[in-house]
């Protein structure tokens, strides 16, 4: 990968670096081999809960495939990341949009 960027404390350049990092992440994501099989909006209340809903989908996808999840708060995100790590899956992308978190989880 030829794209590189430097972390700087220079406020003027800070946004540019964030921008470059986003491009970098997008390139990495595009070049990776996983395929997003399903997008799950887990911001609402459901009986199975976010981990229950996610576990059902992770069971059905193949190794190497991925799921995109949208989560409504920081605590749920931490719980989901802990569960993902425990199950041996991988969070390959994590972004924040407003108050919501978007994770891409690969099996």
């Amino acid at each position, binding site marked *: 990968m030829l794209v590189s960027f430097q972390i700087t404390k220079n406020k003027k350049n800070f946004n540019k670096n964030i921008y470059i990092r986003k491009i970098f992440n997008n390139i990495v994501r595009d070049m990776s081999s996983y395929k997003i099989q399903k997008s799950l909006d887990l911001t*609402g209340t*459901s*009986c*199975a809960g976010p*981990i*229950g809903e996610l576990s*059902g989908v992770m069971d*059905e996808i193949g190794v190497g495939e991925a799921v995109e999840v949208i989560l409504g708060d920081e605590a749920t995100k931490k719980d989901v990341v802990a569960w993902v790590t425990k199950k041996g899956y991988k969070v390959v992308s994590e972004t924040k949009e407003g108050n919501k978190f978007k994770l891409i989880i690969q099996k």
Partner: protein
Amino acid sequence: MKRIIIAGGGIAGTIVANRLVKALSPEIGKGEVELVVIDKSDRHVYQPGQVFVGMGLVEPTEIIKNERDLLDDRVKFLHGEKGEITKIDPANNTVVTADGVKHTYDYLVIATGSHLNWDEIPGLREAEYTPWSYDDALKMREAVQQFQGGTVVINVARLPHKCPVGPLEMTLMFEDWTRRIGIRDKTRIIYTYPIQGVFGIKSANDLMIKIFKEKGIEIISPFTVTRVDPKEKIIESQEGEKLKFDLLLGVPPHVGAKVIGDSGIGDKRNWVPTDKFTLQMKGYSNVYVIGDTTDIPISKAGSTADFESYVVTANIVNDIRGIKQKKMYDGSVFCYIGTGLDQATYIRFNYNNPPIPPPPSYVHWWGKILYNKLYWTVTAKAIV
């Protein structure tokens, strides 16, 4: 004439058909709208009652009626070979049945439900008793009546499944039953669940764990069942647990209807991709999905279907009448949870407001019984 086809005559299909016929009464009277329910079976089972049958608390005849008797006379009902759907083709607005007929529609409501997928777990079919189907509830009733003590494992195989609070109810009703017949001291009850805890919603999970502890019910979770040895009576988990049992009760894995997979319109478990607010099938504005059939992260329960039926009805009616307004489903669910043989609590919530279950009481138990009994005369007929 506009034709509305409802694929499936279970709880969701029946309620939405009756609600639509009432809402579209003027148009149906003038011959401008036709409503057709298509289902292979002409029996209608009140599935939330199956756990009562499995526990021997009600007679099987109390939870089953003829579908024709529940549907409004103005609804056309196709069943048998004429009602066995072999293909759903939303791109061409058609539903094909086993008799070879292609039914065209202007609006389609898919209510084909959730089904048990026993073969996903080797040995499960031979070893487990479940009230999650009518016929299996009858078998469970016999097994429970013969039980004289020993280790009972109650397993939830996979999420999501129909009636999410059902395994909690089954566990607590069974525990109470062993007390009443005097075998509780000879009975070890172990509840296993595929994620941490006993339920996915924190407030209900906390309450249920407290009740389980008070009643001496052991919890092993996460426990993701991988295989069952019916001869040795051992259930094994992905997490490495092996449990010996004398009686295995549980919830087998669920999938959407086979026709969804055969038609290529579902995800890998045959749930249909659905907009969580409008309940339209993703990509098709004239196709709605209701009840267990959807892929939305909400409870697969009769009350969910009932709440959703208002949204589907309003959106189809508005479209037929040229009103450009969409009603949105807010994720409403209401479920009673039996916590014994004469106590219950409940959860009432939507996407944005988690439930606050009240302490179990006799009053909620009778609310549950009343809700079950009113199903035939009020809920199924879309009276309110």
